């Protein structure tokens, strides 16, 4: 058959068969036992031409209501942000996206240096000593942080704040089950981790305490007291942080975090129905050799030129096999590149300005909801999300909002029975005053 991805001609094929010394390609499969040989063709859809397939898939994509042509107030871990246009131009350079892990540093300096710069920017933002080259996403990064803590302390209990993203917590629980580690939830009070409850739960079996900053309800946790309690019990303090918020919030590294993880999706990465995004993993120097995944380090070549290599590989699966610190191999390198470009474009000034706009616009929304008679529960400081009592079933409400071109907030009742009729509303820098006013007005006008 002829296909644009398959360059062999009939003549090529014949010459090659001759060289191999077989008459047909089938002979090369003679080692597959007759009994299990697959006969015939797969029962899947027939091939489609390039143009016809583009058309079909464009129509399929068109069945979805996207956040580009609708106004989205949905966050809960994945956000609709300003994405500098250059991000896509850089990651579309195929020298980057068609390469694999930089195993051969001499011809992979571009990727290696880009990762080194990513590690630097993440370390800067989080206030941690070092960061790795990426994890699958924020959720698995958090789970690996929990596993690191258990391994490091040789303890078998993790305390996870009830204000951590519920899906992240589910992932932590699954990894923990594999390692026979107990996961205990720290209750919340007024939408933040209950300090007194933590004091009661922590003990000499506690490997680590996990909190989120800002937390799942958008509230900014006061980290230092939580860190102090954790360290008194000789556990590790683990923070899952939205890295954009760290543009204006005191970084976890300055508030006692031993491990800071999260997802760099706010930096130039599309929502993409939940992935691929970009987990990051940052630690203090003392935990450097326990980090999962790849690390890039600076060195010199034989002529003294600066260069970069994958380093401290004795932690990894291809060397340590069953003794490795993690099983991760492929990571999210291209997304790390995307977020590096976005962090670079925003830069020192834009990072602060964008983060601040999230806070200020969310405050505007909060005031607007309250002025319209809605209760905004939880009174602490917030980043870019607030919890609004909508007085109606949120899923039903959202079905009405989408008719007006609005993607409503996350239905908290889906996860927390006590928060039925409450929506988690995200307001990022790209939402305008007009859009926020329209949301409040539509929600005010809604009647089941």
């Amino acid at each position, binding site marked *: 058959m002829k296909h644009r*991805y*398959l360059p*062999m001609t009939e003549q090529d*094929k014949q010459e090659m068969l001759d060289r191999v010394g077989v008459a047909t390609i089938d002979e*090369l499969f*003679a*080692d597959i*036992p007759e009994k299990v040989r697959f006969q015939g*063709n797969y*029962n899947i859809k027939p*091939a489609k031409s390039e143009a016809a397939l583009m058309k079909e898939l*464009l129509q*399929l*994509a068109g069945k979805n209501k996207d956040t580009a042509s609708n106004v989205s107030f949905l966050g809960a871990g994945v956000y609709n942000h*300003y994405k*500098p246009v250059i991000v896509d131009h*850089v990651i579309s*350079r*195929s*020298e*980057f*996206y*068609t390469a*694999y892990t930089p195993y*051969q*540093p001499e*011809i992979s*300096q*571009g990727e290696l*240096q*880009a990762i080194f710069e990513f*590690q630097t920017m993440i370390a800067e933002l989080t206030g941690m000593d070092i960061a790795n080259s990426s994890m699958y996403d924020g959720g*698995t990064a958090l789970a690996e942080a929990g596993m690191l803590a258990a391994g490091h302390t040789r303890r078998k209990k993790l305390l996870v704040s009830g204000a951590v993203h519920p899906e992240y917590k589910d992932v932590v629980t699954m990894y923990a089950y*594999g390692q026979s580690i107990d996961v205990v939830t720290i209750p919340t009070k007024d939408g933040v981790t209950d300090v007194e409850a933590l004091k009661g739960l922590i003990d000499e079996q506690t490997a680590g305490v996990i909190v989120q900053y800002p937390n799942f309800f958008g509230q900014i946790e006061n980290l230092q007291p939580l860190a102090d309690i954790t360290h008194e019990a000789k556990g590790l303090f683990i923070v899952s942080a939205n890295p954009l918020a760290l543009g*204006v*919030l005191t*970084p976890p590294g300055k508030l006692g975090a031993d491990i800071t993880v999260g997802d760099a999706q706010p930096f130039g990465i599309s929502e993409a*129905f*939940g*992935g*691929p995004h970009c987990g990051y993993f940052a630690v203090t120097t003392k935990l450097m050799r326990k980090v999962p995944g790849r690390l890039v380090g*600076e*060195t010199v070549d034989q002529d003294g030129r600066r260069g*970069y290599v994958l*380093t401290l*590989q004795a932690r990894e699966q*291809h060397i*340590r*096999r069953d003794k490795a610190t993690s*099983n991760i*191999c*492929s*990571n999210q390198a291209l997304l790390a590149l995307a977020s590096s470009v976005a962090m670079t474009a925003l*830069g*020192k*000034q834009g*990072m602060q300005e964008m983060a601040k706009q999230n806070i200020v*616009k969310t405050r505007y929304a909060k005031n607007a909801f309250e002025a319209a008679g809605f209760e905004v529960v939880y009174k602490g400081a917030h980043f870019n999300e607030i919890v609004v009592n909508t007085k109606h079933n949120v899923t039903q409400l959202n*079905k009405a909002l989408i008719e007006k071109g609005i*993607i409503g907030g996350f239905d908290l009742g889906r996860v927390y029975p006590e928060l039925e009729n409450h929506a988690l509303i995200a307001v990022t820098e790209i939402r305008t005053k007009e859009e926020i006013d329209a949301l409040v007005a539509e929600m005010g006008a809604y009647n089941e």
Partner: protein
Amino acid sequence: MNNENQTLIFEITKPGRIGYNLEPLDVPNFDLEELIPSNLVRQEAAELPEVSELDIMRHYTALSRRNHGVDSGFYPLGSCTMKYNPKINETVARFSGFANIHPLQDESTVQGAMELLYDLQTSLQEITGMDEVTLQPAAGAHGEWTALMMIRAFHEANGEGHRNKVIVPDSAHGTNPASATVAGFETITIKSGEDGLVDLEDLRRVVGPDTAALMLTNPNTLGLFEENIIEMANIVHGVGGKVYYDGANLNAVMSKARPGDMGFDCVHLNLHKTFTGPHGGGGPGSGPVGVKADLIPFLPKPVLVKKEDGTYHFDYNRPQSIGRVKPYYGNFGINVRAYTYIRTMGPDGLKAVTEYAVLNANYMMRRLEEHYDLPYNRHCKHEFVLSGRRQKKLGVRTLDIAKRLLDFGYHPPTVYFPLNVEEGIMIEPTETESKETLDAFCDAMIQIAQETIDNSALVQEAPHTTVVNRLDETRAARTPVLRYKKQEQVTVS
């Protein structure tokens, strides 16, 4: 060639320069101290670059020119299936209706995405011969762990939670034993025999009432098909264990043999290999897992189902599910690319893919066998492994040969893997390369073999044409520098 240090973005920073463009604030402004407790207001700004948009483009363009991808040249990296990454995939994944949808939107607003995923799921079921597929795992290793957790849950549900051993051949990829550990199992390694295949006697010796599973790559990492697969599956099933298929090498058997027909109970696929997800410089991937009927109840939550009215739905009502392996529903963007590829190829195309992948590998193997040792001399599948032990006797290591290939503009093969081949050179050409490319690469390999005899220093000191030459890895590991620090900060500390 450039003899200067390539600048870091931080080194071209100039205070006051910007590379972004935000909409001016259109709501009343506040001081942060009015909204946030003062101890939580960042005092020192993060030291991020301050550069213009052109600075950024020049910087990354310069970096890209210091990087080799499949589009730059041949990339026969064994076990990684570095085939052409079709451009239509990139365009489709960027359609707004795929790129700009939120995972927690109401299901009624994302039916197009769910339809695509469902169709991909069912296509992969057919391709693997499995009864159900989950698209949630983010990469191969993540899929391995997911499947092992399901096997664990299966045994526990049958009151056999004591099964704590996972058997892994010595030729297996490092993620196999690592995933077994993360899933709470102990790894038992079995040897490969003289013929490069799993030693059945060794397998019989280690299986028992504590066997949870056997993890097998077929064809194995030597590129050889495990001919005794039926017997191996019987041995493991005979003691109540499960048989796991590492599908990283599916490119070798598509349309020729299906894991589900070979006796496997579960399989993970690397959509970033066989199904053209671009490797991205190390990721992202997608590692779907397929299972046979008795493992279905344990699939991770949520399970994507098609309802009777033809709509798609994420089913969370799965009481025996192992739980959630990843937030949301997997690496959707990679799944879109894989789907586009499958629809581009169709059944005939996928069969041709495998046939040419295997023909290409055999052709190269035969062209090179006189010049390098071929420890396992039989038809290979999509890849083969040479040994550089003949060259080693002349003082030239496989690493040197790999570095010398850089001078010819090639990415070298995988080296020193699998572990059961001395000085291993693992070559996987893939089906998208032309005969001219394969010949030119073989010519280079043959020339290098000759150089090891005539002028071994030329090989030992390679590469000679790259932007940097061999880097001091010992120094990198001994005094790790994992981030840039401003010069004055360094002198202070």
